[in-house]
């Protein structure tokens, strides 16, 4: 163990964990990374391309190297940053991306082959022989590529989503963020403070600074306590704000249970959609490194991270006695030396690129010096330092690298506002942030503790002023600004590989090669070399790469380009983005009023849009669905059947202009419909194609009920509202949907009148009193309000009776009971489909949005006497000259099925898209015809009755002969429905 004194770990709570099968111990407050370092584990992973041995490089979410697969079995979570993983008892983690052990990765051979694997090499080879790409090259590449592996088991945890609203969202709980939240909280604004870390404080937890002369954590604790007391403030730790969306909406993920062995009863993570009137972005900054030869060895770490490990987690990067060196281009690196020394860690040298480097303490300072090489394949052993032209090797166990800090401008650029280069800060600063966002603190280059605190307060006051909150300045703690003086120094020249992007193995050489091949724009550089495309999205590499490219081209950094960031800020689990509604709850189920009854009758159900409908009701002894369906169909044709048709859209249309309004939305006339009658209607889209069909009933002079197909119910209502509000706002019409209010049951078959007679309260159902297409409001079953429509989808004498939905189930039961002696039979959607196909009624497959009234043989219904939606466009050349017509098709061998979706060809003709004569839309077995029948569209179909066509289904290797017939297989004269 290399534990130091102090730190924010709880030594009274030791935790056991396993890494690559070996068990270790850490403490509460540790991350997996700090615990591994404390246990002297340096080699934790392999790089993506060359499989180089890698160690922990950072202490935060920017970590490029220390990616592990966390947990086991279905909970295994690949590519998890050890630096962001809170230690819990029993934690199990494995290293990734190696064949064989981590220590002896067979794919390390890639490193020896690296000359052959330079940037973009794969675009230049693997082309011959052609077939080898899928068979050989690609599979090999895929096996080698990728990082961790998925368990391939469903995620067992629960997820949740929610919506929050606030006046001020503060992103980042460091010095600036805490000051901003406190300022706004005291001003009475509704504040949300979110931080990705498990506790607030940001860098204050990592530095040795004091506030008011006391440890900074004391002040942090006091502020958090005060904020926690405020009802108007919501503190959200373990919460990453990952994206800035339009109009002040932010996406955030709260890791509710990731710090626990298992979530137990609660969800693992929650997706929050936060709507903020204003936002303070206090996301801090990320340290950058300085590429030099072999700079990727385990033990080489960012200086700020090394400081954090020593101060917050009380771990030394080296075993007691070993030495640490610091390589820096500014004063910041020296802080690491001082803090390590204060903690009793031996510092060999501070190597400063500046010739006039200042000294801040008692350590060995090498000014104007650089690190030019390193040794130690699986862990740093020595570094080579160049000074005044002389190179010397120094034995060290770890090297801290300080290349300056890059403000975390990510969220500020999510709306494509490009950050601008600031020469004094040597960094890109936020520019044109999303509306309502005020960046503050280290992410605008104000990283000193005192200036960050002040800037956070300023930002909060500025943001709230726009909302007319009078935020008063708060008394800030007495703090210092550590000197951030630095001299630009981007990489140490050399002949060996110097890594810029560690995870994707992009080196300075690769950037030079990209330049040579004219891949110079930042985007080309990125795409050619894959720089910045790893899981860290280039947080530690993008800016350095730009600087290197600038140096090669001789241009300035701003001339060379800028970095732009897209959501998410850090990786977000796909599960939580799905919000938890999955499996059978992926979408809500909509049930009909008779669902429970149908279930009790042993119905099979089928998804029809959001609805679950009874598909068929199998009876004892029926072993195949066809037996049930045939029985149901025959029952309707012979006796009487019952079907719940509640799912059809019902729109209540009232108003003095209701008739005129419907004349304009229906292709045919509706204004002339008599009260107490129903009419079949067609609706067109404005482009002239068929939109929907259904019936329209007139209950009173100023009251209609429009029914739509189940599928189009929503769209029909929307379009009618469009017509009412946008096209003809002066008509007196009111619309409201009543689909769910009425349970509607189709009573169909020759004995339907007899059955209904038994439940109506003395209502005259005779043909004279209540003819075909009549409708009425009446009472049934001793006083239940109901609506009765004499309409037929089956071609038989039929009615639809509607009652308040809560009575639907009882009515169905009553009809079954009352009709027992009439052979009453419930039927489902399958039989419904057969019945309408036998009758030649169009349904979804014929009304698929590509067809016209003419194609259905209903061209005459499009009234020329009036204007209506789509009427004029339906007369365009292409539609008018379309000669495809809906016909019936009979299988020439009755027992052979005609598959819907088969294409139709003139018998004997060659089969191609050019000779295509049409297609089969709907097909079924017709017990009435005693064979398979179908509907389809055929070129000049209305003129080809009796012709034998070929129905080709090459997809399934089938071909059939079919006869063109009328679409009305049953009662073509329509006598039955009129008796």
């Amino acid at each position, binding site marked *: 163990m290399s534990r130091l004194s102090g730190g924010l770990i709880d030594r009274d709570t030791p935790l056991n964990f396993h890494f690559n099968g070996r068990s270790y111990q850490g403490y509460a407050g540790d991350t997996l990374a700090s615990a591994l370092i404390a246990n002297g584990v340096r080699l934790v992973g392999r790089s993506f391309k060359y499989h180089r041995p890698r160690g922990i490089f950072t202490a935060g979410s920017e970590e490029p190297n220390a990616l592990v697969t966390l947990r086991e079995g279905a909970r295994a979570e690949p590519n998890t940053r050890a630096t962001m993983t809170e230690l819990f008892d029993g934690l199990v983690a494995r290293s990734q991306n190696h064949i064989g052990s981590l220590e002896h990765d067979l794919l390390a051979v890639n490193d020896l082959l690296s000359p052959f694997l330079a940037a973009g090499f794969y675009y230049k080879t693997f082309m011959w022989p052609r077939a080898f790409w899928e068979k050989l090259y*690609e599979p090999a590449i895929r096996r080698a590529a*990728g990082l961790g592996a998925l368990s391939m088991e469903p995620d067992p945890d629960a997820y949740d989503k929610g919506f929050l609203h606030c006046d001020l969202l503060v992103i980042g709980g460091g010095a600036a963020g805490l000051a901003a939240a406190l300022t706004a909280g005291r001003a009475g604004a509704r504040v949300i403070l979110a931080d990705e870390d498990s506790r607030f404080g940001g860098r204050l937890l990592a530095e040795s600074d004091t506030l008011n002369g006391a440890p900074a954590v004391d002040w942090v604790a006091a502020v958090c306590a005060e904020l926690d007391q405020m009802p108007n403030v919501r503190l959200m730790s373990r919460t990453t704000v990952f994206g800035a969306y339009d109009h002040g909406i932010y996406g955030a993920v709260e890791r509710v249970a990731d710090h626990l062995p298992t979530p137990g009863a609660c969800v693992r993570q929650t997706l929050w959609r936060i709507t903020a009137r204003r936002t303070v972005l206090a996301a801090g900054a990320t340290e950058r490194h300085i590429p030099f030869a072999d700079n990727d060895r385990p033990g080489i770490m960012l200086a700020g991270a090394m400081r954090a490990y020593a101060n917050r987690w009380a771990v030394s990067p080296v075993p007691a006695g070993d030495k640490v060196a610091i390589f820096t281009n500014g004063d910041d690196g020296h802080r690491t030396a001082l803090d390590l020394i204060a903690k009793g860690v031996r510092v060999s040298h501070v190597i400063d690129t500046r010739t006039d480097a200042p000294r801040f303490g008692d350590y060995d300072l090498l000014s104007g010096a650089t690190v030019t090489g390193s040794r130690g394949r699986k862990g740093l052993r020595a570094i080579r330092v160049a000074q005044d032209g002389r190179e010397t090797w120094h034995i060290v166990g770890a090297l801290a690298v300080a290349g300056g800090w890059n403000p975390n401008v990510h969220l500020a650029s999510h709306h494509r506002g490009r950050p601008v280069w600031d020469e004094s800060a040597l960094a890109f600063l936020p520019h044109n942030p999303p509306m309502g966002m005020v960046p503050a603190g280290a992410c605008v280059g104000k990283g000193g503790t005192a200036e960050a605190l002040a800037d956070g307060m300023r930002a909060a006051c500025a943001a709230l002023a726009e909302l007319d909150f009078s935020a008063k300045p708060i008394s800030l703690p007495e703090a210092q600004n550590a000197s951030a003086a630095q001299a630009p120094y981007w990489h140490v020249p050399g002949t060996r590989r110097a890594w810029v992007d560690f995870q994707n193995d992009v080196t300075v050489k690769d950037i030079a090669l990209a330049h040579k091949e004219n891949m110079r724009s930042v985007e080309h550089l990125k795409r050619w070399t894959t720089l910045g495309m790893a899981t860290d999205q280039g947080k530690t590499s993008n800016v350095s790469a730009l600087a290197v490219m600038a140096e090669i081209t001789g241009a300035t950094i701003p001339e060379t380009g800028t970095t732009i960031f897209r959501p998410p800020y850090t990786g977000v689990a796909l599960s939580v983005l799905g919000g938890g509604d999955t499996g059978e709850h992926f979408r809500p189920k909509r049930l009909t009023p008779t669902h429970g009854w149908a279930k009790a009758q042993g119905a099979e159900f089928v998804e029809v849009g959001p609805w679950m409908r009874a598909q068929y009701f199998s009876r004892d002894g029926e072993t195949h669905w066809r037996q049930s369906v045939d029985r149901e169909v025959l029952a309707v044709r012979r006796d009487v059947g019952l079907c719940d048709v509640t799912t059809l859209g019902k729109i209540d249309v009232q108003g003095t202009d209701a008739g005129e309004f419907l004349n304009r939305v229906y292709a045919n006339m509706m204004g002339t419909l008599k009260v107490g009658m129903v009419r079949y209607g067609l609706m067109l889209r404005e482009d002239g194609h068929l939109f929907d069909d259904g019936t329209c009933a007139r209950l009173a002079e100023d009251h209609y009920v429009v029914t739509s197909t189940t599928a189009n119910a929503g769209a029909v209502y929307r379009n009618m509202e469009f017509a009412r509000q946008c096209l003809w706002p002066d008509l007196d019409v009111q619309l409201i949907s009543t689909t769910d209010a009425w349970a509607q049951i189709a009573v169909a078959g020759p004995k339907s009148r007899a059955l209904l007679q038994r439940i109506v309260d003395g209502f005259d159902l005779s043909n004279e009193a209540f003819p075909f297409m009549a409708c009425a409001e009446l009472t049934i079953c001793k006083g239940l309000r109901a609506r009765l429509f004499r309409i037929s989808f089956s071609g038989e004498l039929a009615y639809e009776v509607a009652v308040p939905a809560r009575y639907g189930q009882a009515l169905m039961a009553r009809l079954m009971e009352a009709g027992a002696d009439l052979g009453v039979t419930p039927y489902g959607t399958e039989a419904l489909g057969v019945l309408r196909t036998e009758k030649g009624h169009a349904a979804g497959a014929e009304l698929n949005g590509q067809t016209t009234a003419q194609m259905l043989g209903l061209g005459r219904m499009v009234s020329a006497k009036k204007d209506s939606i789509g009427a004029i466009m339906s007369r365009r050349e292409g539609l008018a000259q379309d000669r495809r017509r809906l016909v019936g098709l009979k299988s020439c061998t009755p027992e052979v099925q005609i598959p819907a979706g088969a294409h139709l060809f003139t018998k004997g003709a060659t089969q191609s898209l050019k000779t295509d004569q049409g297609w089969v839309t709907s097909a079924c077995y017709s017990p009435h015809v005693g064979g398979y029948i179908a509907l389809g569209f055929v070129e000049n179909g209305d003129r080809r009755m009796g012709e034998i066509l070929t129905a080709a289904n090459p997809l399934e290797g089938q071909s059939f002969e079919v006869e063109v017939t009328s679409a009305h297989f049953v009662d073509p004269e329509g006598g039955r429905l009129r008796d």
Partner: protein
Amino acid sequence: MKFSGFKVMQQALTGHRGWAPLWRNPEPKPAYDVVIIGGGGHGLATAYYLASNFGITNVAVLEKGWLGSGNIGRNTTIIRSNYLLPGNQPFYEFSMKLWESQEQDLNFNSMVSQRSIINLFHTDGQRDAYRRRGNAMHLSGAGGEMLSQEALREKLPFLNFDNARFPIKGGLIQSRAGTARHDGVAWGYARAADQRGVDLIQNCEVTGFRIEGGQVTGVETTRGVIGAGKVGVAVAGSSSRVMEIAGMRLPIESHVLQAFVSEGLKPTIPGVITFGAGHFYVSQSDKGGLVFGGDIDGYNSYAQRGNLPVVEDVLEGGMALMPMIGRARLLRAWGGVMDMSMDGSPIIDRTHIDGLYLNGGWCYGGFKATPASGYAFAHLLATDTPHETATAFRLDRFARGYVIDEKGVGAQPNLH
């Protein structure tokens, strides 16, 4: 310079000193026979085929940003020829054939990977529609097969078969479909066009057209006036903006489509899979990222970024279909601007201005069309007659009533 495995080794052993630029950075000439506006996939492919098929090499491609900076640089890389309508299917099948020989034609490995696409269906109605489509594919030589639920359980055991709101009934597979490395496609065409003498001019935005007596004579750009015998516009996403300069209104709206990639994973998903009961389609890149997408955001936009609800909608679909991806992480999301046409199908046609040609309206299906689009547009530019597979992509089809509406939703672009 010819690319080959040998070349790579030779360079590796000589310190990569011998590599040359993939293309030149020429100064614009005063005039060209043909000027292509748009250095994306379609524009670069057009230039390549003009040079290679018709020997027309006095050509410039004008790109306002960097080559391949449009939708070819940001898409879900799917290539397929599984359309329904006769106006579309032969064209996309032609494109598929061009993909199959692309790397050899261009001497550039664009990683065309025929790993198959499977369109899942969840209702009998969907099955029948896919059967009709699959038969259209067969009739155009594209092939395809119906897969039963059993076959799917075999092939894709990780799908949610047993706890689904909309159970999987089967699927339509096209084995020749798959993916290609999108940037590689742009670079391959760019390099091959450049090698044939085409000038690729980056950071050159077109600001106006020179039109004399109804005939286009050149374009005004941020790098000066450039004369042109013919001008081909291939700027899908911005077609309306560019054609507006020429005084044209188009049957097009610009919409944003988001696409997503996960962190790198070991091989997980075999080919391309599309969900039939929600908006989700997915494949896995050679690098290991799950590349997926869904529906467009649905409102007119040129912002090149989308919003959160669509991200949620896509992942709801993804989790419902394959809950085993849940513990992978989203790495990056981006938004591209699509030319959404009024019938969901593209336009490759002359305009009422002589010498001005339009290639656009690709909706979110432009990537797979890149080779055939370039080929057909080059054919039109060179011969003034549409290529045989692109005869239906006319501008006047809307007015005349010959729309190519695969989805049957009419003149509402955000539904296509």
